[in-house]
């Protein structure tokens, strides 16, 4: 169930009214006071969105500045302006510090489209000499304009403002650099210490990229809101921060490009014959990064294997001759590698193998001999997934015979029994499934207030007085 959140306005038109009070005429102080009064009242109702709280503090200073007698202290005005601007910038930037490590305020502000000099002003007002009144007035004006374009207008008229954000930078150069470094250290272990700082810094760069991507996700998935769960990753997708998921998915996409996890040259895609593993050298190369990512993002491997699945099971596999079977089988081997790494990690309580098997089975439809390359890889993966797990093996065997014996036969009553048997085989591979209990109503209870006592001045309403159930905050007229 999707939960709403409380907002101070009954309808968005109330926000629109405040917006027009503030912005219609810059010199109309009376309507600005109306806006201040309304926003102060809203603040007492519930938490205000940060943009509104900032607008309130800025408005209060602006109005104070415009009406103040010349004799009074300018220092207090400068302080009020400074506080309003510091809090505006901090409040906008802080929620976007999404990674483990602090990003510079300037870089986040850049992504937000916040004027860089406001960030400088924030720094000056906090740590340096208090800025001049002239500069602060200009900053307040510019902040109000920024709020109009970035909060009020998009909130009042959703999706009218074109996306003008800085695009997400490509991860490819970073991965390339990582590969180069690791090749050096893998080939000559004595260089490990020498290159350690460089490798660390690349890994930090990947982390930084994830943080940036999360901010970008903030922008791009806005319309998805709370339900940004369109991806095909198995598991309890509800529980994960959609922004982190989005960022990690983009990261995985970059890793799945040819030249990353899968070597560019087909010659290098030599698979170990004895087990279903990716090329040995690739494993040596990428294991450190993958482990590092898994350490910081506990769902990384699940997401990576999920992305691989979706590539393998893609319906629109290229038919124009560009299909690359060794690429597919390399990916399939990486998927199994992910699952093995996941299972090595004993703290993971989630059966990724089973989950992915189910996903794969569903996307393959049925297990039969297939022609397409990606299907072949997927089928191979499916077999190695189930190998060693008796339950899954049994399930797979059942399904396999089904799709092999495809021809239509006459309906026999015994078929029912066979179907039952098959069903039981499949069911036994899962743990006890829970039958959801229907909601049972609590024992009947009297409806309406319990009392016969009457209280002067307190009239208990009911149907007879014209009262009807209505949402909280709606006043129902009574007789």
């Amino acid at each position: 169930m999707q939960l709403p959140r409380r907002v101070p306005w009954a309808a968005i038109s109330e926000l629109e009214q405040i917006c027009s009070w503030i912005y219609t005429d810059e010199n109309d102080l009376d309507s600005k006071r109306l806006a201040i009064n309304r926003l102060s009242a809203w603040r007492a109702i519930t938490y205000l969105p940060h943009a509104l709280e900032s607008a309130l503090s800025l408005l209060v200073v602006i109005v104070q500045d415009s009406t103040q007698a010349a004799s009074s202290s300018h220092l207090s005005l400068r302080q009020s302006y400074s506080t309003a601007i510091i809090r505006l910038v901090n409040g906008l930037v802080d929620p976007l510090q999404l990674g483990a490590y602090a990003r510079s305020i300037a870089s986040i502000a850049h992504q937000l489209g916040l004027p860089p000099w406001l960030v400088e002003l924030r720094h000056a007002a906090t740590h340096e000499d208090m800025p001049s009144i002239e500069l602060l007035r200009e900053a307040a004006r510019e902040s109000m304009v920024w709020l109009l374009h970035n909060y009020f207008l998009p909130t009042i008229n959703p999706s009218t403002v074109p996306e003008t954000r800085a695009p997400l930078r490509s991860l490819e150069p970073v991965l390339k650099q990582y590969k180069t470094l690791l090749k050096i250290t893998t080939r000559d272990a004595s260089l490990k210490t020498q290159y350690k700082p460089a490798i660390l810094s690349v890994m930090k760069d990947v982390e930084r990229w994830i943080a940036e991507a999360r901010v970008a996700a903030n922008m791009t998935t806005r319309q998805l809101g709370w339900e940004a769960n369109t991806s095909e990753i198995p598991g309890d997708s509800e529980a994960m921060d959609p922004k982190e998921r989005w960022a990690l998915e983009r990261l995985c996409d970059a890793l799945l490009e040819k030249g990353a996890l899968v070597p560019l040259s087909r010659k290098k895609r030599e698979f170990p014959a004895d087990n279903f593993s990716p090329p040995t050298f690739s494993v040596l190369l990428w294991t450190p990064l993958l482990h590092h990512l898994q350490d910081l993002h506990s769902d990384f491997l699940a997401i990576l294997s999920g992305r691989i699945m979706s590539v393998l099971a893609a319906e629109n596999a290229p038919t124009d001759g560009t299909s690359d079977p060794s690429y597919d089988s390399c990916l399939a081997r990486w998927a199994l590698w992910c699952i093995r790494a996941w299972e090595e990690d004993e703290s993971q309580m989630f059966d990724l193998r089973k989950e992915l098997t189910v996903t794969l089975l569903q996307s393959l439809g049925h297990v039969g001999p297939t022609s397409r390359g990606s299907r072949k890889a997927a089928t191979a993966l499916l077999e190695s997934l189930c190998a060693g797990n008796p339950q899954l093996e049994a399930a797979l065997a059942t399904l396999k015979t089904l799709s092999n014996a495809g021809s239509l036969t006459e309906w026999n009553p015994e078929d029912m029994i066979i179907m039952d048997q098959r069903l039981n085989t499949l069911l036994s591979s899962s743990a006890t499934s829970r039958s959801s209990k229907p909601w049972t109503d609590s024992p009947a209870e009297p409806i309406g207030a319990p009392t016969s006592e009457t209280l002067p001045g307190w009239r208990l309403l009911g149907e007879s007085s014209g009262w009807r159930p209505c949402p909280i905050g709606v006043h129902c007229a009574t007789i």
Partner: protein
Amino acid sequence: MLSAIAARKAAQAARQDVTNHALRPPTPTPPPPETTAAIKPTPKRKSSSQSTKPAKRKKEKRTPGKAPRYFTEPEPDTFQEQDDVIVIESDEEVLSEDVETPEPTAGRGRWSPSVPLNDSSDEEDDVPFSVLASTKSPLGKVESPDVLSTFLPVPSQNTFILNPEAVAALHIDDDTRSKATIVALKPEETLCLLGTYTFSVLQGSITHSGVTIPSSPRSHRVFAPRSSPLPVLEGVDGVSAISNIRQLPEALHSLIGSPIALVLLQELRTGVEGLGRICRTFDGVFEPSRWQSSVASPDLQLSGVQMVTSQTRDIRPFDVPVSWARALSSVSTAEAATVHFVKGPKKSGKSTFARTLVNSLLTRYQKVAYLECDLGQSEFTPGGMVALNVISNPLFGPPFAHPTLPHRAHYIGATTPRSSPSHYLAAIQSALETYRLDIQTPAISPQDDDERISDAIPLVINTMGWYKGLGADLTLKIQDMACPTDIYEIEAPFDPAWPAAPTTPFPTPPAAYLASESQARTHTLQPIQPSVLSTNYSAADHRALALMSYFYADFSTSPPSPVDELPQLTATTWRTSLPLVAQPPYEVDASRMFDNVVLTGAGTEDVVPTEVGRVLNGAIVGLVACEPGTLDLDMDATETASASAGGIPYMQGAAPPSPATSTCHGLALLRSVSPTSAQVHVLTPLPPRLLATARVLVKGELELPVWGMLDFRSESGEEVAGVERGRVPYLQWGKGEGVGGERRRVRRNLMRKGQM
């Protein structure tokens, strides 16, 4: 239900904490930073309803009829290593639906001015260090589940079903005539029950929730949801018996006189389960979870109660640490009224200990007074008030299961005293005076067969968990005012960011402080271990549930008996068939029935009279009664102000009524305020006799949880009282566009470059 991801993350955090890297191939992986455990955002969102979830997860074929999943519906084995789960809580004032709350951590290396200093008043915001330090159990090992019930029911041997007539013959203090089950518990035999039930000890004594309960005709109500530690009944001996023990059926006579405790269990129907339907985080907490339903459990022939044989992943038994038991057994045994002061950090078990202490004192005293100073998670009232209660029945259940009308209370209106510390102290001072004058030494009303002390009422004081900075000062001041005879201090985990509080808070301690210190006996207690329960349910969830429980509670069924001067007015039933939006309210003319409307909380001074109706619409207010003549109102000014406030008697910037001369009866929800007149529609569970005197409204920072604004009758949550969801006022589904459209959030765990 705990999401799989949450458990995984927590478990992984645990793994990293012990830096178990042996499983890895030796690679140049940089060691994960030490604080990794804390940087995982804890997914705050829980599945709000278990029933809707599986449908969402996977499109699978279903077989008609039995409806198990066709293929494996792999339920992630969430709690396999439950013992190893590190609980990382984040309790900002955010309900579970807020997804992206970054995990705050206890700070280290906070040097940049752009990172806020750990404001000590954010008592709910940081992770206690003990969480990381104390859970270093070996990992990867799956322990066999702990056995919770060694009792194995065998009909006609140790389990007997009684018909209503046989129950009536025993003359138990329970007016419900329903069938009962008698269980015979041998010494040290345990029985763990989930659900709601009442029990009476017919013969011998048992321990329940850490308290030894001797045989008596009293029956005790127990609420044991999965969201709290489950109490375990344990047989002690068979020494005493109730006077009517011979009325038991013949089959039981062989057990009479044997060293076996006989416990009568009965069904308890209160409607409390309905709260789970309202506050979906707690959906089905009185029923066994999926983990338990997979384990067959013996049937006790009582509905609403389920025997729990062994520990499963999402429950925790009620466990009394050794130091607690020691402290409880060494409580001052003076005949006089003793004052017990419980303090310690949040989530260390203060409230649980205080409740256990009350129960333990109730075995020696007829009544015990309880002063709640924890505004965030109050025992008897919804949060936001300092409340003094007088308790005569032991409390077996979490706070939401016993909402009680206070003897005296003062509405602070916030979950911490951060914005009004002096008002908070004045409120406690007033409550303490009330205790000393009215309660400590009650008029003796001897009850015939009660051997417990009746001429003195001890006091238990529970304090807030804010034990640093200003919070520590406040707690010391309260201790100073209370002059306790016993101090129970739950050890605070070591936090390098906050050096140990100076042992003498004042350069020259006042005489009273010295005196109280010299008299008081101090008991040091271990904190309880954080459990899976605190991962599943945050403090904000519990607060929301307590508030919902209060508004749905029915206090009218417990009218005060005329002989009892200090009655315990606990709600015994909940009316949960209708959501709040559909419950008929009272209509009140605010200009006539209320003398004053006060707004408290930072920033409320700026609310002008013309806007006050808007602020009150949908607000939760404290209903305060002032002693006649003490409300100092400037009549002329009030009239002018209320004229512009549409008749609502509001004075901008007025202070809340003085605690010395007022008391808060309870809370009300102003479900709507008329835009054109001073008519307000009010929902309150308070009985009418209390409403007449409540002529002052105080609105604080407390808000109605979003659960209270929804309509659970609409299955999909698409409608509220017939209004489709896009048109429901004051609620917004989905996230708005625009930058800065969210609440400000604070992170305290950012790492700087070079910390990697």
